[in-house]
Each structure stands twice: as C-alpha cells, then as structure tokens.
C-alpha cells in the first residue's frame, strides 16, 4: 500500500532533458517560495506589535528595490523560457531513423498498427532504442496521446494529422493515457506501452498470427478499391501513375498557372477523399470520391503503400504528362520521362488545410 511512486519513470531519450528542466524550474520555485516565506515570517516576527525595535521613518518607496525585483525575476524567467523552449523543439523534432506508426484515436480506444502489419488496440509493443514517430488522427473528437514515462504528449485532432516522436531507452511496461476530455469513457481510453529487447520484440512479432505487413495490406486495399484499375501498370484510363510520387512536388493546374504541391500524407489523403481538388496537371477530374467508404485505418494503409512505391524509379514516360517551362503542360505523349525531383520554378501552395 505504501510503496506508491512519487516520481515517474524516465524511459525515453528526452526524459532526462525534461527532468533537468523540470527540477531546475522546481528549484527556482522552491527558492522563491522559501525566500518569501522567510521574508514574511522574519519581518512579521521582528516587527510584531509590542517588540521594542526601531520603527522610525518606514520607507515607502525605493526605485532600486523595485528595479531589483523586476530585473531578477525577469532574468530568471527568461532562463526558464530558454531552457524549456530548447526542450520543446527537441521534443518535436523527430530523427530520420524513426519508424512510422499510424495511430487512430476513436471514442474511447486507440488503434495502432506496426509497419509489419500487426494491429494493436490500446497496446504498443516496441523494441528498446528504436525511435518511433506516431502519425495520429482522430475519427471523432479531440483526444490526446500521453505516455508519462516518455514525457511526451500531443493532441490528436479530427481531420488533421498530428505527429509525435520518442525513443524508448528502458525496457518495461509504461502506461498510456488520453488526456484531452473526450466523453464518457475518457478515463478508460488508455493502455500500455510495452518496451522489449530487440530479441523479445522479434519473437513477439513472430508469435502472433503473422498478418500482412502494412504495405501489403495497403496494396490489397489499393486493388480491392479499384485504385489499381486506373493507377496500375496496365491502366486503360488516363490517370497519373503513383510510383515515385510520394514526398515529391506534384504539378497541378490552378487557373492558367501551374503550381506544385508537396505530395505528402495530407495531399494524398485529400486526393482520395476529395479527388476533384488539386488535380494533377494534365489530367481530367474523373476520379470518384471515397469519402465515407474508407476508414482512417484503410487510408493510412493505402498511404503507406503509396509511400512504399514512392521510392521505386518513375515508370516509363508513356503514362506521365510532360511539363515544359515554356510550352506548359503537355498531355501524356511519347517523350523521355521528366525529372520529378527538380521541376523548374517550384512554387509550393501554402499548406491551407493543414
């Protein structure tokens, strides 16, 4: 009963930095509180009624003193701001090697899926030392993904991707909470993050029924929902090929100008749900909308698949429209493939619906 924890565990790469900044601010707080306490009790005792002590000409103002207790708190406050701002930037700058795990928050459960395809509800098994980058979205209200032991938290918004990263450094079982009030079972919408050694993690991966990997499942959905019918190899309909597209600027026709938009998750998700917006230059807006047919998880899987084929070399020139600075967009015609990576004069549209 009495072995209850006073301090949380420190189990992620950013936790030590967090604890340093936290205890620094606690120290500043304790110092100021004790300073005020001593000042008040000391003065109250020394000058209490009845004590014979010099009370002549009590000072009623002193510019020096006022400057002192404006300047000193300001300097200390700025130091606190500096330290915590650096920590904040560190908390939200994911490293390159992070494994991406899609997370979907739904009223009162978390649905996660490993790249290898394993799906988990309210549970997350991770190898120690491997940085993880969570790409999160909510299906209904605002939730918030919080793992106290890793000192990280990020609200999960409906309609917009939010991101969070951490690198677990200690093997163990840590609690996961939802910290943005989301309705009836807000308090049970949590679970566990299980950090295991690399070997245990592989054994755990293998034991469970080896479901398809995220990418394979994405490919299956890609075919099942007739995406391949237009975007696949032997496509009869004239639709942009998706190989080598992810993460690169895509030319789109806006009025009489051609602008480029970054083909990131947001763009692909919008294109699936609302295909007639930001159509690729040189193509007709004929794609049907999948609004309401694909759940958030399926969307994330399809995006994972498109991301996987994103690094395959761009296919033959046949199916790609040729963009030429002066002659503008040419319909897809037998011309040597253009270089997707370095289009001339790329002007990126502001991320409007971010």
């Amino acid at each position, binding site marked *: 009963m009495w072995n209850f924890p006073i301090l949380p565990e420190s189990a992620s790469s950013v936790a030590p930095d967090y604890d340093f900044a936290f205890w620094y601010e606690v120290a500043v707080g304790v110092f100021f509180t004790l300073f005020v306490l001593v000042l008040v009790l000391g003065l109250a005792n020394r000058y209490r009624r009845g004590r014979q002590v010099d009370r002549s000409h009590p000072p009623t103002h002193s510019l020096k003193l006022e400057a002192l207790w404006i300047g000193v708190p300001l300097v200390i406050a700025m130091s606190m701001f500096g330290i915590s701002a650096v920590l904040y930037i560190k908390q939200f700058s994911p490293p390159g090697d992070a494994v991406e795990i899609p997370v979907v928050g739904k009223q009162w459960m978390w649905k996660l899926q490993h790249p290898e395809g394993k799906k988990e509800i309210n549970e997350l098994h991770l190898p120690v030392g491997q940085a993880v980058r969570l790409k999160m979205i909510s299906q209904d209200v605002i939730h918030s993904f919080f793992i106290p032991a890793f000192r990280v938290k990020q609200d999960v918004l409906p*309609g917009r991707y939010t991101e969070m990263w951490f690198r677990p450094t200690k093997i163990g079982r840590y609690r996961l909470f939802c910290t943005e009030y989301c309705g009836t079972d807000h308090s049970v919408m949590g679970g566990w993050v299980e950090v295991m050694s690399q070997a245990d993690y592989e054994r755990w991966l293998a034991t469970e029924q080896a479901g398809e990997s995220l990418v394979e499942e994405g490919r299956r959905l890609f075919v099942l929902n007739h995406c391949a019918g237009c975007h696949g190899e032997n496509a009869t309909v004239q639709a942009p090929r998706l190989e080598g597209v992810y993460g690169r600027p895509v030319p*789109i*026709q*806006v*009025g009489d100008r051609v602008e480029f938009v970054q083909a990131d998750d947001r763009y692909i998700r*919008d294109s699936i749900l*609302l*295909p*007639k*917006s*930001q*159509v690729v230059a040189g193509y007709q*807006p004929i794609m049907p909308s999948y609004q309401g047919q694909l759940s958030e998880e399926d969307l994330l899987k399809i995006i994972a698949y498109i991301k996987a084929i994103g690094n395959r070399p761009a296919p033959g020139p046949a199916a790609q429209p040729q963009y030429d600075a002066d002659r503008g967009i040419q319909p897809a015609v037998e011309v040597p493939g253009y270089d997707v990576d370095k289009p001339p004069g790329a002007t990126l549209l502001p991320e*409007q*619906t971010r």
Partner: protein
Amino acid sequence: MSVESPAHAAAHGAVGHEPSQPHGNGHGLVAHQFEDAPQQREAALLGMWSFLATEVLFFGGLITAYVVYRWKAPVQVAVASHHLNVALGCINTCVLLVSSFLVALAVAEAHRGNARKVVQLLIGTIVLGVAFLGIKAVEWTADYHEGLIPFAANWQIPSHDLEILAQRGIDADQFGLYKLFWVLYFFMTGLHGIHVLVGLGVFAVVAALVWQRRRSKNFANLVEVTGLYWHFVDIVWVFLYPLLYLIDRHGPGH
C-alpha cells in the same frame, strides 16, 4: 487618508443631501449620486463608450473567425461572395450613412434644445432603419430562393460555382468550406441586423421621451448617447460591406 470637513459644509448644518431625490440645477435633472450635470454627462458618455468597446469585441470574435476562414479558403470565399448583390449593398450603406447624418444633426439640435426638430430627425432615422432592414429582407429572400441559406432545407451549391471552383482546381464541397462563407455571412449580417432593430426600438422610445420632456429640455444627454450607439452600428456596416460584398469583383466569372 483623513477627512477634514470643509468649513462651509459644517457651517450650514449637518443634514446631508436628501437621499435619492434628483436635484435640479437649471440645466436639467441630475441623479442623486452625481454632483452636477457635466459629471452626469461625462459618466453617461464614458458608460456608452465602454459598452461600445464590448460591442467591438463582440463583433470582433466573428471577424476573427471570418479572417481565419478567409485565409484558409480564399478562392471559395471570392466565388461565393459573387452571389451578393453589390448594388443593394451599396444602397444599404447609403441608407445607413444618411441615417447617421440625420442622427448627427439630431444630436446638434438636441444640444440646442429644440425638441421638434430632434423628433423629426429621429423619425427620419427610424424610417431609414426600416428601409435598411427591408433591403436586407429582399436580399435574404433572394438568397433563399437561390438555395444559398446554409441552415435552410433547400441548401445546395449553385452549379455555376461548382464549375468555377472545379476549373480553379478546388472541389466545392471540400470539407464544407464553401458553405462556411454563407454561414458567416448570415451570422454577421444577422447580428448586425439585430443591432439595427434594437437601435430602431431605442430611437422610438427616445423620440417619445424627447417629445415628453420638450419643455424641460432635459434630453440632450439621452439623444447623444443613443446617437453614439447608432454611429457604432453604422461603423460595423462600413466594415462589413467591403469585407463581405466587395471581394475580387474584378476577376473573371463573376
């Protein structure tokens, strides 16, 4: 802070002011808590200015929502706003400016104390206010028949706009952004309309009071304070008109 009772107060005996009867001092009645008329007038004006500050921020919340929304979906806003009738809006602005002019004259006349002119000017303002609401009603019924009222059953995006937006590479009902313009349009003009309506009611009461107090000429403050409110309602429309009606009117396809 100690109090020294002034010599003259002690001299003429101790009985303080009789509680809560307004004491007149020539210019007009002064409520018991005020010393004299200028103090009462200053208080009334500062009171109204504070109230107008709350109104500025009340409309401010809506304007902030409008600014954020217009930054998010500029093209939808431009295309949707082309359905608004600029001419009727312009007439409406003239009506309000004329009514503001009449109120300014009414305040000047009120200080000169001729009640008859004040009442005439106020009635003129009320007529113009009703005209303003009439024109708004005309606009809104036109919008209704076009199916542009978002919370009405017959809401549908005009096909004309669908093509323009598609041609500009934007899916009209992308997350309902097009519809949001009409939501904000009706909220802002509706809220402004309610304030015009309240203004008409207040002017009617004030006109009656001015006529009632025409002999004692004690209505200058009343007219001036309600005049401030009406000018504020006019200023709101001065900002609403360009923000809602005159967006990219030069572009093609409008």
